[in-house]
């Protein structure tokens, strides 16, 4: 899968998005009514990724999220449980997990598949696989793939919110980079074995937030020529940290061309992604 455009939006939860919202509204015929923070983050990231490039109307939208629209969900819970009243319709609509991805499709007139998926700690890896499947089966000629999450702890100074997007297709011409390989296993060794030998020549190994600190040595031994990076150190506490790492690599912000990203979920399952900047 080739990546043609990238956007990485990563902000502290305290950042006021009003100015960014105004910029977004200037470029659109209309804006969704009372868009909450999750929806706004989604549109800001997707808009930055697409830019002024025309997309195929059959382009698919693939949104990965760990927690969905947490702030509107909290608002509805407050209205329904604490106040024992009807929820406000606009809050309720925004709690539907796929509303944000719909607004992306609406903004760019995209009639292809429109997915919102979650898979604890592996959401972005799963949505990449889903998009690759849809590209391969010709369900969509292009895939706009995003990871969006609000901060789960606003009192943590390291907490970050992110909306990171990739525009992918199977066409290599003009691509910024490529997802070269993907593997999955119940140990790091098992997952690494399934990757092509070129994976051991990656110039960087990025370790996801649930990869234990004491695994650093293991990875250093397996890929002695690679520098090691931690998503937590690089991106702060952020559920979309995998997408941030991939986005930054493809934007040339990491100073390397090939990265092996290592994610682990709470059950101990590993998913590895080999990503190359072209």
């Amino acid at each position, binding site marked *: 899968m080739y990546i043609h455009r990238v956007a990485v939006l990563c902000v502290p939860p305290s950042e006021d998005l009003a100015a960014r919202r105004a910029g977004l509204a200037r470029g659109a015929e209309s804006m*969704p009514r009372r868009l909450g923070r999750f929806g706004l983050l989604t549109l800001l990231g997707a808009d930055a990724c697409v830019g002024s490039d025309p997309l195929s109307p059959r382009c698919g939208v693939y949104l990965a999220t*760990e927690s969905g629209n*947490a702030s509107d969900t909290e608002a509805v*819970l407050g209205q329904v*449980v604490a106040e024992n009243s009807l929820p406000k319709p606009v809050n309720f609509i925004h709690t539907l997990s796929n509303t944000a991805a719909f607004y992306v499709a609406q903004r760019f007139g995209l009639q292809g598949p*429109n997915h919102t998926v979650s898979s604890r700690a592996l959401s972005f890896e799963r949505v990449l696989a889903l998009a690759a*499947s849809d590209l391969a*089966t010709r369900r969509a000629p292009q895939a706009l793939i995003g990871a969006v999450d609000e901060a789960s702890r606003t009192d943590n100074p390291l907490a970050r919110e992110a909306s990171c997007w990739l525009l992918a297709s199977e066409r290599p011409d003009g691509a910024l980079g490529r997802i070269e390989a993907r593997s999955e296993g119940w140990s790091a060794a098992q997952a690494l074995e399934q990757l092509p030998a070129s994976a051991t020549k990656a110039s960087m190994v990025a370790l996801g937030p649930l990869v234990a600190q004491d695994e650093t040595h293991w990875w250093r031994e397996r890929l002695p020529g690679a520098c090691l990076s931690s998503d937590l150190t690089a991106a702060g506490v952020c559920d979309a940290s995998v997408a941030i790492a991939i986005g930054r690599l493809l934007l040339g912000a990491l100073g390397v061309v090939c990265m092996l990203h290592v994610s682990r*979920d709470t059950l101990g399952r590993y998913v590895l992604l080999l990503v190359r900047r072209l």
Partner: protein
Amino acid sequence: MAPAIHILGRAITCALGDDLHQIGVKARNGCMPLLPLTLELTCGRVRRPFCAIGQRQPQWDAPSLMQLILSTAQRALADAALDRAQAAHMTLLLGTGSLTIPEIESEAHRAQLTGERYCMRRPYACGLLAERLALDLNSRGPAMTFTTACTASATALIHGADLIASGQAEHVLVVGVEPFSRSVFLGFESLGLLSATACRPLDAQRDGIVLGEACSALVIGARPATRKNDWRILAGALGCDTTSVTSNGADGSRIASTIQEVLQRAELPASAISAIKIHGTGSGPNDESEAAGLRQVFGARMPAVTGLKPLLGHTLGACGTSEVTLLTAAADAGFIPPLAGFRQPDPQLGIAPLTQPLPWSGGVLLASFFGFGGSCTALLLSDR
């Protein structure tokens, strides 16, 4: 054309029960299991019919919800006769609209009763249910949750079929689950979408949606089922209608193009369809757009049309797997269920649904599912 994918096992727990034979009998008889649900709010009383599992006031917490999902999934796996090794390697796809909201509500409600200050446990993780189920089933294959509102489990089913067709999975367990949640029920009420009487799609007397709860599971794979009736998924289509976040365009053009795409993928003409299961929520806008879409594809040669939401309620994210389960089980019993409770044709729609069971001896079924967020899905199923 992609290779056909076989339905190997199926199970459902819904307002009609959990025994597929008994559910079939009730569907033939047009049973509408409506429970009058009353919620006392500070602004007054909300009283609406609801299709509840077990015909009791619905109340879910984390253990009871997981038990519902686990027992339904286990029945589907037993029906498919997967051995332990196959089950351990299967892919698990779960579709839901309400995610873990019912258990969050339960915690919030308990905190309120005890006077504690409730703070939502963030992140509440959308993918939690699929992960828990994988753990309970000892499944070590990939697990993922689709949250595309009312098309969630239908979308999961289509993706599962793609994974098998491309050789990425041997077996996929697709689960749809939608328990009652106060937030969702009152959310639909706040939008003015709920019926005061019954779900009556395509009916001039329609007055809205009746929500329901269900958990259903389908096991799909590349090899034929050992049962007498071998149901195959011939093709699936996915699309997005960008008209409005809450409804399809009234002209039905995106619905028509989704149906045309699924026919194209299966390399079948419209005339090959023996019967149609519409989405049929019972709302005016849904009827208008869906009827317009069907007219564009089928014109004057409309196959037999039915809908299952009068029987199950609108089970939102679970309606894909639930309605495929009920539809194929009824067909196995030799009939396509009539549109229960139908009274008066709507002359504006130009579609006359089944009012009596349609004898079934095999054929191709079209099943459509649409939802909030512009989701459009269509499936072609065949037992011929």
